[in-house]
């Protein structure tokens, strides 16, 4: 708002008094001088927006309580066990970013979204942090900053600038009826990211004057954060030290045909799939939906790979299903399911193999072994200074990391929205955006009975999506296909 007196002139004298009193209270909010001016501006714009919608001033001010802005969370967080690798492995062109989106019925209003973010960020202090160097590890330090929402104008999951003190490790963007959050994996995993996004969208709806309710995914942003949600869950779990350890680095494996693109990802494609139909097929075949999709993907990869050898799919596992810890930070690990290409000729054999390996390799006992190994590795590396660890980790990550898997398939599962959101939110998507050697990354999310399977492409070769489309079409599963333009063309 350029002129404050212009703002007040919009209201009658009675309303002016109420608003002046409100803004006098707002002066105490804890922000830096520059951010404070912008936040007060956000409040003015929001009040004017609601006033134009014929809402009463007293009702508008009830929607935007000031109290949440007065608390100051001067906290710092050490990185959790699984996120310690991310700042070590990033470089000027690459960092691990994923993206979550929710689609609403109507186009997004930037003023309301900015206000919703101002409120939501107070509830999730972990997201209002910036990353810093320590002597042994990086750490996150709380910053009382205003995070700006942007209209989407870049490639999905593009690099975040976290180099400055006042830069957070995520961004909120909107485009038409979609609200997206792109997170550096360092602060949260997809589960934590989804809680943040759902809470943000719920807050957006509340600020639009809709009645909202809360659940395990949509948290009340007017409440205070609690310590348990920001804790390092890996430190809270105790594992039998005699359990069999599982190696974190595997041998190199086959990759899908096609040259790696220079723009990453070079295209994003979303297949919307009918949940009920795929559930019926999975039930018939006596497998879970995840196992069924993995089997389809093995089949497609078999067609898209000209060389012979083992095909490995890396599957991230949300450890919350084994441990009742409700942290929003990283608490997922991964394991791989592997089938030799010569055994990919029959879907029933693939299903049998995937079911057997899923039950074995993704079991609690095996994942505990992976976790024990990760914890031990971090423990041994703790005493090495960061300036030695960083180039070493960078090298190991560059030459070994994702070369040991053909693709990554991450299934976030069925997101249960609160009833108040169900009518406003139509669907969602989940995009894994960054990678070094894999040609394709697959991510799955289910919202409102629509399973969205997203492909992030890192090659201009179209065989993967074409073969997957043919397979899904044959089973009559596809509702519709959305996606981005091709950011890189190659004949």
């Amino acid at each position: 708002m350029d002129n404050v007196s212009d703002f007040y002139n919009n209201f009658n004298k009675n309303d002016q008094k109420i608003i002046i009193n409100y803004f006098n209270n707002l002066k105490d909010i804890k922000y830096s001088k520059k951010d404070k001016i912008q936040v007060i501006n956000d409040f003015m714009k929001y009040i004017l927006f609601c006033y134009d919608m014929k809402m009463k001033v007293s009702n508008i001010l009830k929607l935007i309580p000031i109290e949440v802005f007065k608390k100051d969370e001067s906290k710092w967080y050490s990185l959790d066990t699984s996120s310690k690798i991310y700042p070590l492995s990033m470089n000027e062109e690459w960092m691990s970013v994923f993206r979550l989106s929710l689609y609403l019925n109507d186009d997004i209003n930037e003023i309301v979204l900015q206000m919703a973010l101002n409120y939501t960020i107070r509830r999730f202090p972990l997201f209002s942090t910036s990353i810093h160097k320590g002597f042994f590890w990086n750490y996150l330090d709380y910053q009382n900053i205003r995070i700006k929402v942007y209209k989407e104008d870049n490639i999905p999951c593009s690099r975040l600038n976290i180099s400055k003190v006042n830069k957070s490790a995520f961004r909120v963007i909107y485009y038409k009826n979609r609200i997206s959050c792109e997170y550096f994996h360092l602060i949260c995993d997809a589960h934590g990211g989804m809680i943040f996004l759902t809470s943000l969208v719920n807050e957006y709806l509340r600020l639009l004057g809709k009645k909202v309710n809360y659940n395990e995914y949509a948290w009340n942003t007017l409440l205070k954060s609690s310590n348990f949600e920001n804790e390092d869950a890996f430190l809270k779990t105790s594992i039998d030290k005699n359990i069999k350890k599982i190696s974190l680095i595997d041998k190199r494996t086959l990759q899908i045909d096609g040259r790696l693109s220079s723009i990453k990802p070079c295209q994003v494609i979303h297949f919307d799939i009918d949940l009920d139909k795929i559930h019926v097929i999975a039930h018939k075949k006596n497998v879970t939906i995840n196992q069924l999709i993995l089997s389809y993907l093995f089949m497609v990869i078999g067609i898209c790979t000209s060389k012979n050898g083992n095909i490995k799919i890396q599957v991230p596992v949300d450890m919350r299903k084994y441990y009742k810890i409700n942290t929003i930070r990283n608490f997922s690990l991964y394991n791989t399911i592997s089938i030799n290409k010569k055994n990919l000729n029959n879907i029933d054999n693939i299903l049998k193999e995937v079911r057997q390996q899923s039950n074995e390799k993704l079991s609690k006992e095996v994942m505990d072994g992976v976790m024990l190994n990760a914890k031990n590795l971090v423990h041994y590396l703790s005493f090495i200074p960061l300036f030695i660890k960083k180039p070493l980790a960078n090298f190991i990550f560059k030459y070994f990391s994702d070369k040991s898997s053909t693709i990554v398939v991450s299934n976030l599962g069925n997101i249960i929205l609160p009833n108040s959101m169900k009518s406003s939110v139509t669907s969602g998507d989940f995009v894994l955006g960054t990678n070094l050697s894999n040609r394709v990354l697959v991510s799955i999310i289910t919202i409102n009975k629509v399973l969205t399977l997203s492909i992030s492409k890192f090659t201009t070769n179209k065989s993967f999506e074409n073969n997957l489309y043919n397979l899904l079409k044959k089973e009559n599963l596809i509702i519709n296909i959305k996606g981005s333009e091709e950011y890189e063309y190659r004949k």
Partner: protein
Amino acid sequence: MNIENNYPSINKKINYFLLIKKVVGIIFIISFICCLIVNLSLGGSLWCFYVLFGEVILYFIFFKRFLVDNIMIYRVCFIFLLIIIYFYYIDLINNTNWSFLVNDILIYILLLLQIISFFINYNYHKYMIVMMLFSSLCSIIIGILSILRVLPFNWAIIVSFSLAIIVLVMLFVFYHKLTILELKKYFSLK
């Protein structure tokens, strides 16, 4: 397969900074190799490393961006450190003795810059505490070594030693809570 486009069209931007950085990097490598060949064929002192060090310093001034904590004063400190090593190396090769005085002057200028920056960037001053502690400790160690006659003694050492004591007193008396918290964060093993 028809894909409904639900993403904005992107204006593809070329990252000129990365491009120039790569080109300059290649020019630097080639020029160093040329100097190395000439130096080895003519013999004498290893002056080709003057070129290398000079290139490294230029690269850090213009092209190196820290991915984390990219604060101006951090970069300045890092460049000062490189210059100090550079001067010491030149001194060592030529068998002269001027770098002690120059480096001591650089160290106290650095300390002065850090103190000024600490008060100017008050919002971010806590991120300078550990760096100021390191510089002060470094000055104090050099001062003690000079008093013990291990290093040559000069007026710049007295100035930087005194400044270092002032910095330590300031941090541990007036900002002790913040200093201890910052040290805890910096040296955390978790």
